């Protein structure tokens, strides 16, 4: 697992209170990991803080799974 992937997953485990094994790349925040819309906003904010990036709202809307988040951050984090 890449460094970015493991940091992303650690944030998800922490914020959503889910087990690490549930946090697969395919897992959807809302359908599989029990997040509501506010949880999702909070996750995006945590990613921004952890990786020192700004994720515009229209991009954030497309981040629905763990894999989406990792891919976006790998592409945009410096």
């Amino acid at each position: 697992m890449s460094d970015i992937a493991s940091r992303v997953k650690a944030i998800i485990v922490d914020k959503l209170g889910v087990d690490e094994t549930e946090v697969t790349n395919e897992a959807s925040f809302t359908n599989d990991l029990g997040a509501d819309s506010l949880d999702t906003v909070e996750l995006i904010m945590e990613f921004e803080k952890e990786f020192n990036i700004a994720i515009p709202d229209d991009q954030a809307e497309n981040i629905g799974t763990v894999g989406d988040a990792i891919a976006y951050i790998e592409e945009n984090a410096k």
Partner: protein
Amino acid sequence: MELKRVVVTGMGAITPIGKTVDEYWNNLVQGVSGAAPITRFDATPFKTQFACEVKDYKATDYFDRKEARKMDMFAQFAVIAAEQAFQDSGIDLQTIDQDMAGVIWGAGIGGIITFLDETRGFVKNNEVPRFNPFFIPKMISDIAAGHISIKYGFRGPNYGTVSACASASHAIGSAFDLIRLGKAEMFITGGSEAAINEAGVGGFNAMQAISTRNDDPATASRPFDKGRDGFVMGEGAGALVIEEYEHAVKRGAKIYCELVGSGMTADAHHITAPHPEGKGAQRVMENALKDGNINREEVDYINVHGTSTPLGDIAEPLAIQRLFGDHAYKLNISSTKSMTGHLLGATGAIEAIASILAMKNSIVPPTINQFELDPEIDPKLNLTPNKAQERKIKVAMSNTFGFGGHNACVVFKALD
């Protein structure tokens, strides 16, 4: 239209002197003080460095971490007390009509801990607006009622009451009225507060409202005593399950007592000082007794507001004497804030519980820390000084008064 009768069928409490109703009651009767040095933050720079905290409180003892993170401590206390009351009531969610079950909950301040944390983060982050999405739903004081309704699926009337230190009594009185009118069959009601943080203590310090007896916290809350110098901040929650009498009987509920009357008035005098002659306080008791069709001579016990502030503790006994006349000397009066501190928006709930248990157990909990009575207070009044007193109680009332000049009173009566 004939009003329905209302009874109390469940109670829950998390307080500075006990995290269950039993522990709370035992310590009330023993005269235990909940005051101690503040542990929640470094209080060294503050004029007041002690408070009545809920001891050894860990949110994760009650909630999973994810759940806890989304609730300010005042809402956590609310849910904890509500759950105790719910369990105590023996309600079966399968058999009640949840559309007719409501929640009305008092909180005088709300999520001030969350508010301070979030604004601190804002300033620290060079005022770039990155507020947590849970900031507002953690802070707003009605959210406790929301959380409780979600937990039990109570889809009836649901809102918060805000009247500073009278908030919980207003909640109980409002829930009582809605049941009487047939708009709901039962409620979880009460109040909670968690304001012992830098903003809460600093704010009350600035008002010179709280005691600064840092060298002896346990004797700082001394209502009616000559040496009193302000109230002691407390925190926690109290919850009552109240329901329509026939509804309770039909499900075979254990009934503590009847809730017979409530009063609500305003001083219309000053934002923080009570009316010097206690006019609003007198009228609120008068209204509550009238509402409950109770004669003054029937009252045995008044759990008074008695916060240990210089002005309030003079006005309230005067109000009692003017209303009750000679019967004032036959009453048991006590301020349990001498032990719990002042739980602000929760105080009306935990003191309703104290009143109900005094009736149930025929014991009046004391006003502790009575060293020398204020010479302005009539020494013939029985303030239940320092030691609990045995007494058969048929009618008990609980007074609360809030900054803003809000007064509320509820009256409980033993079932025949």
